[in-house]
């Protein structure tokens, strides 16, 4: 495990309130807004940024390919551009992992990571997400993010002998949490009945169990700790599993279905961070919940409770904001999910919590440690990060 003083740290963060559309800003405007705020939050001057990474997932919704040519002009660190990281929805977290490597290696001092999404610039996400298909095997059956998550959900129900009603639990919790989050897109609570009565997208997944279409932006500055508000990056773990596109699943070899891919990534992160008992050593978790099933699989995959138990425990009050180990206390992706910026929002939210600056969403910080997760593609890549203050 790396020595505290040698670790890279999060020095500054920024995000904008998430909405369906942000018509008053263009893509470069959004990037510039969050970049400036994050640099200020880091207590740095613009010219102290000596590295810039653009975390940008598929750009079809933006209408511009390789958007770094257009988007980065004028940003702090644009002259010292380190590249675009594209790992679908895990881009933000993977980019932060790379930024941490640059700082820990000494090749850069202050790296700015930015991302922005304008979700309404394409009529629908279908074209963009269709790029995830192998055109020869996609004729078998429509496998996309929703049907793939539905397949995971059904398998979970059968494995643990539970009904589709369990998927309401994380949603009700997260939507209630979103009420207190000024950055959330959805800020009204919902009841379990409302969730379960919402239209079926792909059984058993209901519309309210899946995140909305979101525009947003976030930025993070990584460097060596420079103040009491710096949040150290104790370790990252990444695991690329699952046969591409989901056209073939590999029972017995990967965990596409049961969340053990998350465990693989978590083990790598916990090992780097020196965590042996996550339930006792962490204050909270910010996990990627674009679909309800992901929250259940992530909680279990991170070792925060036994397999099959997550929903029951949420219903019993665990993992809620006031509990011992809150999950998604800001509402998470349930309340707003910009594809590229989302993982950076996890970092921004976790940082605010660890600093005690999370306002109405604040959770109790006893250990000063938290975990964040991201999932890329049709669940191919899993990223887990351990943060500490």
């Amino acid at each position, binding site marked *: 495990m790396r020595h505290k003083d040698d670790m890279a740290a999060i020095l500054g963060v920024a995000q904008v309130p998430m909405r369906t559309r942000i018509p008053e800003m263009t893509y470069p405007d959004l990037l510039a807004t969050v970049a400036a705020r994050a640099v200020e939050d880091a207590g740095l001057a613009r010219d102290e940024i000596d590295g810039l990474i653009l975390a940008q997932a598929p750009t079809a919704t933006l*209408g511009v390919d390789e958007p770094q040519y257009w988007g980065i002009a004028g940003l702090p660190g644009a002259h010292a551009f380190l590249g675009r990281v594209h790992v679908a929805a895990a881009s933000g977290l993977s980019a932060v992992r790379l930024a941490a490597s640059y700082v820990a290696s000494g090749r850069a001092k202050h790296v700015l990571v930015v991302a922005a999404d304008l979700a309404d610039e394409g009529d629908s996400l279908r074209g963009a997400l269709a790029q995830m298909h192998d055109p020869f095997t996609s004729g078998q059956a429509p496998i996309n993010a929703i*049907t793939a998550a539905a*397949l995971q959900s*059904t398998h979970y129900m059968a494995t643990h002998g539970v009904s589709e009603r369990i998927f309401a639990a994380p949603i009700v919790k997260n939507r209630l949490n979103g009420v207190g989050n000024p950055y959330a897109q959805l800020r009204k609570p919902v009841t379990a009945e409302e969730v379960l009565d919402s239209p079926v997208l*792909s059984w058993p997944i209901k519309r309210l169990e899946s995140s909305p279409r979101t525009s947003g932006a976030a930025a993070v500055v990584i460097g060596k700790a420079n103040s009491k508000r710096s949040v150290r990056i104790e370790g990252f773990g990444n695991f690329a599993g699952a046969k591409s596109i989901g056209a073939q699943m*590999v029972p017995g070899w990967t965990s596409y279905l049961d969340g053990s891919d998350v465990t693989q990534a978590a083990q790598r992160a916990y090992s780097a961070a020196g965590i042996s008992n996550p339930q006792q050593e962490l204050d909270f978790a910010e996990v990627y919940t674009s679909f309800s099933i992901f929250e259940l699989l992530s909680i279990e995959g991170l070792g925060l409770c036994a397999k099959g138990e997550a929903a029951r425990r949420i219903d019993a009050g665990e993992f809620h904001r006031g509990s011992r180990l809150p999950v998604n206390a800001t509402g998470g992706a349930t309340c707003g999910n910009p594809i590229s910026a989302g993982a950076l929002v996890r970092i921004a939210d976790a940082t605010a919590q660890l600093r005690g600056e999370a306002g109405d969403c604040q959770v109790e910080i006893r250990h000063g440690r938290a975990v964040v997760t991201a999932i890329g593609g049709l669940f191919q890549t899993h990223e887990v990060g351990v943060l500490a203050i």
Partner: protein
Amino acid sequence: MSGAREQVRKDPEGIEFVQASWDVPQKYHADPLLLKFFEALKEKQLLAARASGEKGRVIFPPTSFCEVTFSAVTELVPIGPKGRIVTFTILPGTTPKLIVFVQLEGADTASAGYLRGVPEGEMTSLSLVGAPCTVVFADEPKGDWSDFWFELID
């Protein structure tokens, strides 16, 4: 690339958009073993790919490469037609469609397809998970995915 002004679309909030589209013509190349698989469907035959070596997986639908051992795969073997449902989902609509992932006998992978013949009222039954099923062929297969589907075995 013309300099002509692109169309403006009407927006409920009165925001002016520039209409443009992004066409990227592609030439996709099929995996050669997959092409053989499609040919075999015309004879109502199902083929999987067997990776070499002791740990050689049987991959269905066939691919020329095993991503786990990172070795080339050249051998095709017959597979199925029986199998077990690993998981499923239902696409809603006037005619709901049951999408299943089935692991065919002899295969190490599960693969997607449609399950037919299940009454609408019984589609959400979890007893489908783990249920035995079989591949059923169309009368005149053409050499594409529509040539077969799955049905439950009583």
